[in-house]
């Protein structure tokens, strides 16, 4: 159990879905930490020291020991602090949670970003198809209030990208990535998630995030 003498910091940027994941996990456990805001256009010495391989955020540092990769950080947090467990305890259920979290990263995140940050119609169509296909699997998978059951778990936390960021991309780009009519259960889940007391507190304010991605999109369009 972490005590107040433990040094905990999180290197990240507000508005990153991956950083948000870690913040949700920390908040769920009631863990206090220092948030070190990075500027990805001008990475700090600390970031380069703590994540020399990828030079990316989030990086979680516990008593000078750094960990990178959001899902790996969350598993570490879950193993180190036992209150409000994030992963299931049963090995098979745990494996399924890992599978679905990885699925979100491999099949949804990349394709959603590519569908959004492109002016090539073919690329857009192809990636939109991929996202819709992946979301269908998730639609079929959701059986309770959350992927974690009655309470949020690893998969819900991983999927916060879908609940908060995908609709923003959709709105800016005029895309049909997460239509609620096509994915009613997933849509309902997303509303439960963003209104969950812990998640609600951790999610960044929508307007600045929207403005940030809109600016990026517009500069892409302008450069073509």
């Amino acid at each position: 159990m972490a005590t107040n003498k433990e040094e905990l910091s999180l290197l990240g940027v507000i508005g990153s879905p991956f950083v948000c994941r870690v913040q949700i996990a920390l908040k769920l456990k009631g863990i206090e930490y220092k948030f070190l805001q990075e500027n990805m256009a001008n990475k700090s010495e600390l970031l380069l020291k703590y994540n020399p391989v990828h030079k990316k955020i989030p990086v979680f540092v516990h008593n000078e020991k750094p960990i990178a990769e959001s899902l790996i950080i969350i598993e570490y947090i879950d193993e180190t602090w036992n209150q409000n467990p994030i992963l299931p305890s049963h090995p098979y259920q745990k494996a399924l949670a890992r599978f679905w979290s990885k699925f979100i990263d491999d099949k949804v995140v990349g394709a959603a970003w590519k569908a959004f940050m492109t002016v090539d119609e073919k690329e857009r169509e192809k990636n939109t198809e991929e996202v819709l296909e992946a979301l269908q699997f998730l639609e079929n998978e959701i059986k309770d209030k959350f992927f974690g059951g009655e309470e949020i778990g690893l998969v819900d936390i991983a999927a916060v990208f879908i609940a908060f960021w995908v609709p923003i991309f959709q709105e800016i780009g005029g895309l049909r990535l997460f239509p609620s009519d096509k994915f009613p259960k997933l849509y309902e889940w997303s509303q439960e998630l963003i209104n969950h007391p812990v998640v609600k507190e951790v999610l960044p304010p929508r307007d600045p995030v929207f403005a940030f991605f809109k600016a990026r999109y517009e500069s892409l369009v302008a450069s073509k």
Partner: protein
Amino acid sequence: MAKVYEVVKVFGTVGSPFAKRVQIALELKGVQYTFFEEDLRNKSELLLKYNPIHKKVPVLVHNEKALVESLVILEYIDEVWGSDQPILPQQPYHKALARFWSKFIDDKYMPAITKAAFSANKEEREKGSEETVEALEHLENELKDKFFGGESIGVVDIAAGHIAFWLPAIEEAVGLKLLTSDKFPKLHKWGHEYTNHPAVKKNLPQRERLVAFFKARYASIITASK
């Protein structure tokens, strides 16, 4: 130890490095299983039933419960079949590092070597070679003991198996020279130790067949790009 009434099945192909990861882990744990060899051009009903989402190998089926994704399977095997021969470290921080490097191998090394050997475009292949070398450099720097797992093999060693056996076969098949002993002395030595580990040695495909397979794959890509 798997009990007699436990039914463990593994779906894979003889040459798949991902299937081999699972087989090596089961070997280390002394778990008996039935291996179902798949023809990926003609996937079996069973494979499609057990892995409807990705339709890929490996699949582990334990008492009719299916799992896919080799690294997810390795963690499951480690959790279910005790700590006699642990695959992951016990301590959370070391465990996190082991997961980081296993993921690194899948996210950075694997796509790079595929690109280096099997891209239709020459520039892409050159870029892939650079990326492969970069990935190998990170791993060379990371290796501090006999194995990534220390004195005994662990999840990172199992994940890195491709480097020890498949990479040299690819190099021979397509004429690449990436894992040189002067540039990567530790990895080179590790590769030798790893492939000679009893649990691994039993579970390696035939080298000549692997080289032939890669030669054919390379040839078809080069032909198609003309």
